[in-house]
């Protein structure tokens, strides 16, 4: 993953639980493995004051860690099928939490980005959450021309799903929108269509 770009491009670390009265994990698909791996180093008591929101977009695949996570018997467990469907649940949990709750995000870049946006909306400092990227690097992209957001972007350039312009996906990132910026790549020469490559997988 390229992190040496511009300052606004988010960088991710690896999860390292710290002492707290309450822990909130939000993960998707391969991010589940990060939780399961942590569990090998933690006592089972850890999970008694812990909520896990796990989004399993491909049940019964190699990225499905739902059984292993459920087996941790954390105090609250929610299984969802998509980040969009889980948004309300995530915001609820964040808004109900008390200061001191530790927040951990693990999984695809879109999950990390959207969850961080919800964390910020709940009034938390974005630096107060731990993140670990696992799985897809597909991006949410905002077209700077029509402002529409296109999720699941894996190619460079990419077509805006709202206005149809061909966009260069930049590393320029907005925490407020949880989206990378897409700028028309062939404005001067509409016939000049650069080769499309899978850049964010």
């Amino acid at each position, binding site marked *: 993953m390229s992190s040496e770009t511009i300052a606004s491009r988010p960088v991710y670390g690896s999860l390292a639980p710290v002492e707290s009265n309450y822990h909130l994990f939000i993960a998707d698909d391969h991010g589940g493995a990060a939780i399961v791996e942590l569990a090998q180093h933690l006592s089972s008591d850890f999970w008694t004051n812990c909520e896990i929101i796990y989004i399993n977009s491909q049940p019964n695949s190699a990225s499905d860690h739902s059984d292993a996570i459920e087996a941790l018997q954390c105090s609250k467990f929610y299984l969802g099928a998509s980040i969009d469907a889980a948004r309300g649940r995530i915001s609820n949990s964040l808004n*109900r939490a*008390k*200061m*001191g709750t530790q927040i951990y995000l693990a999984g695809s870049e879109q999950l990390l980005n959207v969850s961080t946006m919800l964390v910020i909306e709940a*009034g938390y*400092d974005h630096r107060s959450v731990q993140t670990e990227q696992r799985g897809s690097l597909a991006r949410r992209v905002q077209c700077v021309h029509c402002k529409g957001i296109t999720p699941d972007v894996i190619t460079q350039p990419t077509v805006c799903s709202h206005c149809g312009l061909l966009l260069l996906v930049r590393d320029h990132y907005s925490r407020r929108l949880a989206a990378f910026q897409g700028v028309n790549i062939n404005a001067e020469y509409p016939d000049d269509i650069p080769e499309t490559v899978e850049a964010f997988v």
Partner: protein
Amino acid sequence: MSANNMIDVVVTQVVEVNELVKRFHFSRPDGLALPAFSGGSHIIVEMSDGEHVRKSPYSLMSSPLDTSDYQISIRRDDEGRGGSLYMHREVRPGMSMRISAPANLFPINNRSTKHLMIAGGIGITPFIAQTAQLLATGGDFELHYGARTTELASYVDELRASIGRRLHAYIGENIDFDDLLSRQPAGTHLYVCGPEPMIELVLAKAAENGWPKGHIHFEHFAKAPPGEPFTAYLSKSNKSIQVGKDQSLLEAMEEAGVDAPYLCRGGACGQCETTVVEAEGKILHGDYWLDDEEKAAGNKIMPCVSRFCGSNLVIER
């Protein structure tokens, strides 16, 4: 900020708040508005006491909504370099003084959902300005105010009148910080101002309770302590200066006509950081800016609060 942008003001009122605290009101001589500021800002007050000019930071306590009248409260400190004694004894209504424009090193975080404020003693002053601001903007807050005695609980009645039940006063009582910090809703920001041991205790409790650093704000200005006089050589200005016993190194540089940077004059902001070129002796670090390693290495000094004891000090200024 440096020495050149001071504002001329007139002292319009001096109010004895209690046996230790006096409040000073400043306005512009031409009656125009003073610069706008946000709650938590401080100003530097210039005190021409005898041959020396002393400059100390004080939090603005007046409402940011009223820029015709700046107010500060000063607790008398009989052990200090005499700044507070000068203010208490010499400053009278009608006097002309000079102050700096306000600077805010302790601002309210407007993104937060709730503000939890903890004040000890005279550390109440920035919160008086901040609560006035929040009353106007509608922010959610709680102010927990500890003081040793009723007499020392300056402004408790005024605050009760302005913010009502959002004031929690603890007179001669301990605040249960664990309880307080463990029941705050998500998105709360913590603000602490008061004596150093209280700040340290609250910061330790906040860390124990898992509060992230980005949600914790505190303000504590170190006082420039009096001490043995010493000599410093300023390598860029090519000047040798004497620092008197009641003078800070920064004030001595200013007296010698050297334009040295500063913002807080209380060892907190980092603005005055100066490279030490040579030092035979001991730097008496008094700031909260340099970390322990930097202090031990001795390559840097904060002239607003730190002193020197030894035979030779050369700094890059």
